[in-house]
């Protein structure tokens, strides 16, 4: 049973919690988001969101987790069931399994790319092959491709997933904690080496066209106009969500293995601030300065236009490292190695709640539960891999990795403050705390955080075209309606960006719209299926003597 699982050391627990938060987004998404949203202007809303939404959510989720752990529940349905007398509460916990399983399925696929890139960096592939051509060939994406079954990508995906399953099957202390104790220090070491090397570049060095400080200046220049722009606030709050891995159910699970009277406040705060160190100090000083040094600021601005550093990280950086001579293979391996460690410490956190659910509620033995998680993640991940060119991956990323998180976080913070009750909630957060939790957060958790998340949720639902909120309100009040962005939640549901929306083209071939709708249906079925498992588990529980 999962109840026998335990953390070995406190530092191991904190590193695992930080590893859960630190992911690929710290190095790829944060610098691009900061650069695209006014640089310095982005950072002020970002830090405010961290204090008013990020830290409170870390405490709330840890408190829900440790409270559920007392009753031998280590996954969200059981934890929420124990938060009140309502029978529907356990079904809110379905989100805590759904997001972890579905995100893990495509996240391990990205993780497998980083592992493949470590290998190809070390053997010098990128000295002779253009990374853009390599990436397309690796994923099987060509202009005409609809399906893809690229053998190398498939092999690395299976290897990465098998590694995750193996580590999870070793248990919390010998698997998850040990990986975090090795992976997190190595990640920070690799990042520091690359930051020092990158900032040490000078104009006149081979291939360098501009000082890396120009890139740093681009990210950090104060631009106060962004402070009154809702789009900047939405981007900053959204980044806090993704970077802290809140609204998923994984932190709840880790906290459920902490003793009833042991600290959660300091552990969660330490993990949160460690994540900020990796993101703001290391992530903000790596990708953009190095890319600026070799490509120039204008090219970097163009490459991060969509708010993602993915293109720079995977398609451009491997070539740029070639300017570093004999150090190039090692630099590439360190860059993709740190992304791999960031990825695996997060994907393990996604797998653990699934194992815990199967162990706690169905009495499945750990190794079998790990295999069960691996099989489910493989089937869903295969859909992402196979239909990658047709857009299945992006659908997974948006509906599970973006939308679901916000919904679950909103529900959990409301249930914590208003159903569980702030008296009990505050007692849960502060019991055994090794730090003084400012009393102000009692008010913040009950009122400010839910309102904050509600604004983020509403903003993402009705985000106007081009992020022009002022123009959208003027249009609304002048009777011309609200100009929805195709990227908004409603815009996506209605396929606003697809002028010729149809499931089959004139020749009768399936279209991307069919794959988008099919993927959404699949995700809904997974959600309903997990809900049914929860129903079965409680029926089984009631039938026990």
């Amino acid at each position, binding site marked *: 049973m999962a109840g026998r699982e*335990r*953390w*070995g*050391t*406190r*530092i191991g*627990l*904190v590193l695992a919690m930080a590893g859960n938060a630190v992911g690929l987004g710290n190095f790829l998404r944060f610098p691009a988001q900061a650069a695209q949203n006014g*640089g*310095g202007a982005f*950072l002020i809303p970002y*830090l405010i969101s961290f204090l008013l939404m990020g830290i409170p959510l870390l405490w709330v989720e840890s408190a829900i987790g440790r409270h559920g752990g007392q009753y031998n529940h280590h996954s969200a349905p059981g934890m929420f069931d124990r938060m009140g007398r309502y029978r529907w509460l356990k079904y809110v916990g379905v989100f805590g399994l759904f997001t972890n399983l579905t995100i893990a399925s495509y996240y391990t696929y990205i993780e497998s790319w980083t592992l493949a890139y470590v290998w190809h960096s070390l053997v010098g592939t990128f000295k002779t092959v253009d990374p853009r051509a390599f990436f397309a060939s690796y994923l099987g994406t060509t202009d005409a491709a609809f399906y893809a079954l690229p053998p190398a990508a498939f092999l690395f995906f299976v290897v990465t997933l098998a590694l995750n399953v193996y580590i999870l099957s070793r248990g919390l202390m010998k698997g998850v904690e040990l990986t975090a104790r090795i992976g997190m220090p190595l990640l920070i070491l690799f990042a520091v080496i690359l930051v020092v090397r990158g900032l040490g570049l000078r104009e006149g060095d081979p291939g360098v066209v501009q000082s890396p*400080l*120009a890139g*740093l*200046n681009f990210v*950090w*220049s*104060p631009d106060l106009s962004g402070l009154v722009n809702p789009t900047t606030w939405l981007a900053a709050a959204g980044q806090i969500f993704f970077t802290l891995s809140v609204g998923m159910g994984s932190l709840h699970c880790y906290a459920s*293995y*902490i*003793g009833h009277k*042991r*600290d959660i406040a*300091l*552990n969660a*705060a*330490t993990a949160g*601030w*460690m994540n*900020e*160190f990796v993101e*703001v*100090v290391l992530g903000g000083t790596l990708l953009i300065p190095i890319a600026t040094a070799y490509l120039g600021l204008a090219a970097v601005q163009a490459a991060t236009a969509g708010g993602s550093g993915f293109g720079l990280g995977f398609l451009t950086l491997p070539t740029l490292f070639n300017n570093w001579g004999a150090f190039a293979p090692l630099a590439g391996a360190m860059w993709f190695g740190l992304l791999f460690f960031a990825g695996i410490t997060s994907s393990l956190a996604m797998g653990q709640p699934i194992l815990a659910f199967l162990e706690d509620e169905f009495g499945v033995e750990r190794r079998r539960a790990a295999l069960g998680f691996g099989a489910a993640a493989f089937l869903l991940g295969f859909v992402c891999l196979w239909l990658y060119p047709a857009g299945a991956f992006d659908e997974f990323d948006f509906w599970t990795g973006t939308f679901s998180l916000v919904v679950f976080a909103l529900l959990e913070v409301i249930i914590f403050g208003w159903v569980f009750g702030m008296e009990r909630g505050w007692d849960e957060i502060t019991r055994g705390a*090794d*730090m003084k939790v400012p009393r102000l957060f009692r008010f913040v958790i009950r009122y400010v955080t839910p309102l904050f998340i509600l604004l983020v949720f509403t903003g993402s639902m009705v985000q106007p075209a081009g992020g022009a909120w002022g123009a959208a309100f003027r249009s609304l009040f002048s009777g011309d309606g609200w100009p929805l962005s195709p990227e908004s939640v409603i815009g996506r549901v209605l396929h606003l960006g697809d002028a010729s929306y149809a499931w089959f083209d004139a020749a009768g071939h399936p279209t991307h719209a069919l794959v988008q709708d099919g993927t959404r249906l699949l995700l809904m079925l997974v959600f309903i299926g997990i809900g049914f498992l929860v129903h079965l588990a409680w029926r089984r529980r009631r039938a026990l003597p």
Partner: protein
Amino acid sequence: MTAGAWGLLVCTWTVVIFFAVRFLLMVIRTPTGPNDE
């Protein structure tokens, strides 16, 4: 880099490093295990 950019970078880094190190030191100094009774 402009003075404004340096200023923002130094202030933000100081806050982030201060809290990350402070809390980590507090964790190390109170090493009671997460499951100790």
